[in-house]
């Protein structure tokens, strides 16, 4: 069994500051690994699909997932799904099995309503400037909560792993007039545009 507490110290060193989201990533990652019956990967046998997007709070979650699962950005086996959620689907590429784990809404809401967010983070105070007396109990809470109170752990399901298929569909960007592959297309004021014309490094 993978114990998230064994990874908290490494997580804090890697992540750089104390917050509740990184530990939540440790808990979610551990639950997924234990459900699949796998340990930490040193190579890239597992794939971590994190549902977070950009520009929202608690993306630090993904650092916890990197630390505990060993699915790292450098090894290329952690990917964002851009749903703006905190679920994790952990895939065992070898066996074609996967499990989805997500933090319970009540647990996330409880953290969000805490002084760490309401008195400090939403007012622009960086995490390292938040007093330990405020953030430590939050971390303790996440690390020690019974799994059934903290997480929804799904059943193992089949996930035949295959590399993404190449897309042959494309369209002409309505701003620059250049061709762009459909999955990279974006909407801007109702016009179909390429990511560059959206002004966003997508």
């Amino acid at each position, binding site marked *: 069994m993978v114990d998230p507490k064994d990874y908290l110290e*490494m997580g804090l060193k890697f992540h750089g500051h104390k917050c509740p989201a990184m530990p939540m990533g440790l808990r979610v990652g551990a639950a997924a690994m234990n459900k699949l019956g796998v340990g930490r990967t040193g190579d890239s046998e597992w794939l971590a*699909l994190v549902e977070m997007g950009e520009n929202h709070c608690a993306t630090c979650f993904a650092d916890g997932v990197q630390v505990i699962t060993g699915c790292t950005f450098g090894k290329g086996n952690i990917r964002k799904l851009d749903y703006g959620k905190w679920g994790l689907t952990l895939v065992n590429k070898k066996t074609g099995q996967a499990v989805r784990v997500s933090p319970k809404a009540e647990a996330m809401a409880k953290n969000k309503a805490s002084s760490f967010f309401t008195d400090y983070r939403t007012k622009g105070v960086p995490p390292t400037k938040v007093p330990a007396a405020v953030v430590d109990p939050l971390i303790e809470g996440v690390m020690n909560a019974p799994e059934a109170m903290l997480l929804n752990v799904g059943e193992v399901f089949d996930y035949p792993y295959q590399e993404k298929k190449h897309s042959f569909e494309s369209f002409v960007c309505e701003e620059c007039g250049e061709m762009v592959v459909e999955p990279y297309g974006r*909407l801007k004021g109702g016009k179909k545009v390429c990511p560059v014309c959206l002004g966003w490094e997508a």
Partner: protein
Amino acid sequence: MIDLPEWVWEFHGHHCPFMPMGYRMGLIGLRELGMEKVKDHGAFAFPEIGLGHPQTCMADGIQAATGCTYGKMMMERTNFGKIAFTLYEPSKGAVRVAARAGFLADLGKFAFFSFRMKGVEPSEIPEEITMPAVEFVLSVPEEKAFGVEKLAGFSFSRPKGSFAKDICDNCGEVVFERYLRIKDGKQLCIPCSTYGKE
């Protein structure tokens, strides 16, 4: 030889030469901009890697050294497929650190790579094969290994929050516009487009 903390190896998960190369590049970037490891937010690291080539491990070394982590939204790959990265902090500017071609050619002669090319996973390669390549990366003189260049006028910012939203043509639910995707001419939310799913 550059001192690489044990926890960084543990984080990465296996021994290889590119993670320590990234760690070293990260330290150079911090030094050039006069910065310490970034514990909060505010800086960005842009490794010029893509996906599906073995040098990408470099990005884990950069994450660990600079504190510009994937989770904190401080790291983006440029998909150039190059062994270089740019460190940017708005108040201190930007610096690009790139591995020199001669250094990479010398590194390529180590036996580690003949194992990798045969498809052996890094953790299954004997330490006596891997560690000479690692030690080479951590001890080669900096000026021989890396080109360092300050980038005047470099800037980057995250997109501003958007209030524009529209309806998915399939499920009829409301989606923030930048999350809508285009498929077969229709505008769809990510789950309906199936694009987000691997």
